[in-house]
């Protein structure tokens, strides 16, 4: 099969042919996405009009440990993203592009550049068809033939363009390029070939998007703390509307939550990050606890707020364990168990024991309260104690130790208490924090000491 063939002719040759319409907008998006991703390798990335990316790598070879290493990383990264790549490497952007189009991956030095380029034919070059035809009429087959001709005569016959192109490719003329400017937000869409509901498959697709995000962030020295993964869901065929009744009845819209066509997953990492493995860990837990209501057809990853992420500062004397790593663990725990599942605790200045503490979401310096006799365990609700032989009883007779701590407080906010607190011991040696409610005239257990 050849390009330019009729569809009917192609189908006659291959009966199982599937024809797809070319989506130039999607191609453009993917091209831009790859440019953003490639910024991690070079600060100077150019979108060539062809589906090519030009990376200026001369200035960053030392950082990546040599040309071979860098090219391997680029190759591996692109394969990870699911693309195939043809590389070319030359001292000038145009020569690199031509070599890549000709499928010649080896790096070429400036000295051997005219010779190497000379072996190329005209087909890959950005020339009009009639120019190529007139070159052929002159009996020229390769660039070497063109180079051997006097350039002035060539320009007169074929226009200035070819001579200029050759000069740029050979580095005799400057070839300035417009560098790619990445956007300030990240949004990437991935369409799935078939509806997917299994979390492993979604994780795989999500990983691809996260790799792109990571490359984008690495190129700009940024990180994200929170991203949204929007899953486009398959509209579930409605059973009732099978009788040619569209979803016009108002009760359908309310009664069927699966008609919602989007499913958003918020991934919070607890601190700015750009590591794929870290982000993937959170996504995995989120997918595990939020089963999809319907199969997904596509994924969109959005990162609206980007954070400056400096290289981690390592301390000579610390062993590399920092609070930042803990924040990431906390994000993973919260992703699976819910945001409220992980909190800190801190004391709160109030005399009422049940209000003398509160949970805190952010670790901050708690007020230092005066040290009083307080139990390490506080019961969620005070437990009423029965009386036996005029003594409070909790599986064993309780004996109060010391004197009472009387707490009367809260008359101003509608939760007044009037209690006498005691440390009480039983014969077993267990120590309890009990109180006598002076309004109800009854005993309660409120805490355990040990």
């Amino acid at each position, binding site marked *: 099969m050849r390009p330019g063939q009729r569809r009917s002719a192609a189908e006659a040759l291959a009966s199982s042919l599937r024809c797809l319409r070319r989506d130039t907008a999607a191609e453009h998006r993917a091209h831009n996405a790859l440019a953003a991703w490639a910024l991690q390798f070079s600060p100077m990335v150019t979108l060539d009009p062809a589906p090519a990316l030009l990376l200026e790598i001369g200035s960053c070879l030392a950082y990546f440990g040599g040309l071979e290493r860098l090219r391997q990383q680029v190759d591996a990264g692109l394969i990870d993203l699911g693309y195939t790549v043809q590389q070319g490497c030359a001292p000038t952007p145009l020569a690199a592009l031509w070599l890549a189009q000709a499928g010649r991956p080896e790096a070429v030095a400036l000295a051997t550049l005219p010779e190497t380029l000379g072996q190329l034919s005209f087909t890959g070059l950005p020339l009009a068809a009639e120019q190529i035809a007139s070159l052929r009429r002159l009996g020229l087959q390769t660039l070497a033939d063109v180079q051997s001709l006097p350039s002035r005569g060539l320009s007169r016959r074929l226009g200035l363009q070819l001579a200029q192109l050759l000069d740029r490719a050979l580095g005799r003329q400057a070839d300035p390029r417009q560098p790619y400017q990445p956007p300030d937000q990240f949004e990437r869409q991935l369409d799935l070939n078939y509806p997917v509901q299994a979390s492993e498959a979604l994780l795989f697709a999500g990983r691809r998007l996260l790799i792109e995000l990571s490359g984008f962030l690495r190129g700009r020295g940024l990180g994200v703390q929170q991203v949204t993964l929007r899953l486009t869901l398959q509209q579930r065929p409605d059973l009732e509307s099978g009788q040619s009744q569209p979803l016009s009845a108002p009760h359908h819209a309310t009664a069927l939550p699966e008609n919602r066509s989007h499913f958003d997953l918020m991934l919070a990492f607890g601190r700015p990050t750009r590591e794929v493995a870290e982000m993937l860990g959170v996504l995995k837990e989120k997918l595990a606890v939020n089963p999809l209501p319907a199969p997904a057809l596509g994924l969109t990853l959005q990162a609206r707020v980007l954070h400056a992420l400096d290289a981690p500062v390592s301390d000579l004397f610390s062993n590399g364990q920092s609070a930042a790593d803990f924040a990431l*663990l906390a994000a993973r725990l919260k992703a699976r168990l819910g945001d409220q599942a992980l909190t800190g605790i801190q004391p709160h200045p109030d005399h009422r024991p049940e209000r003398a503490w509160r949970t805190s979401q952010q670790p901050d310096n708690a007020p230092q309260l005066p040290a009083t006799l307080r139990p390490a365990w506080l019961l969620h609700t005070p437990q009423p104690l029965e009386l036996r032989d005029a003594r409070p009883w909790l599986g064993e007779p309780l004996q109060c130790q010391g004197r009472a701590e009387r707490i009367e407080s809260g008359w101003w906010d509608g939760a007044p208490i009037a209690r006498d607190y005691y440390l009480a011991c039983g014969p077993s040696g267990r120590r309890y924090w009990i109180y006598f409610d002076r309004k109800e005239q009854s005993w309660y257990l409120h805490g355990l000491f*040990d």
Partner: protein
Amino acid sequence: MHPAVDALLHHPKIWRGDQLACTEHPGLATGHSALDRELPGAGWPVGGLTDLVARQPGSGELRLLLPALAALSQAGRQIVLIAPPHIPYAPAWQAAGVDLTRLSWLRADNERDRLWALEQTLREPSVGAVVGWLAGAPADRLWRRLQLAAETGGGSGFILRGGTASTSSPVGLRLQVEPVAGGLSVQVLKRRGAPLARPVLIPHENRAGDQPLSFRFADAVASPLPASATVTSVPERTLRVAA
């Protein structure tokens, strides 16, 4: 003895029946010197698990653990409590010296989530200690997984579980803590080394020194105490008031 032989005998892999096992890492000091003397590495295992049997909450498990947790938090290590049975009461934990900014309380309703969270937190190097409460004794396979996670993370894991002291576990250190009059009794059920016949007794600290002002104020006002309460004064405190 020849010094070379002596050095050889102190190799971590060599253990003699009459002594405690040498550990690769020194243990995390428990804060109770009587107990430190009986534990291999002179403290709680670091990069390992401790199986702590307490028949019910408030049996002394916090009294046992708090000194070590306080020291860890002040050294900047994180502490995670997984599914504690009651509220860890912030004023008391603060008074015990725990830096509350390093303390996290994780709620997890079912056992699966608890075990998962235990493994995740034990694996994290910035976490110094994980205290997890489990409803039942986990299977041997899960114990080993947790043990591996603790070795990876290098923190100390404390598993408080239901069940009796007789249920075995593949963990190197198993203790049972019980309250006794005036203190705690810690029975070392299993350790790397010669078995310990007698329990270690940890007396309660004398709290007379930090009685709050309100106590003395209450004394002065001489509030009538409820008739149903039987009150015994602590002798030291009576002395102090008299002085």
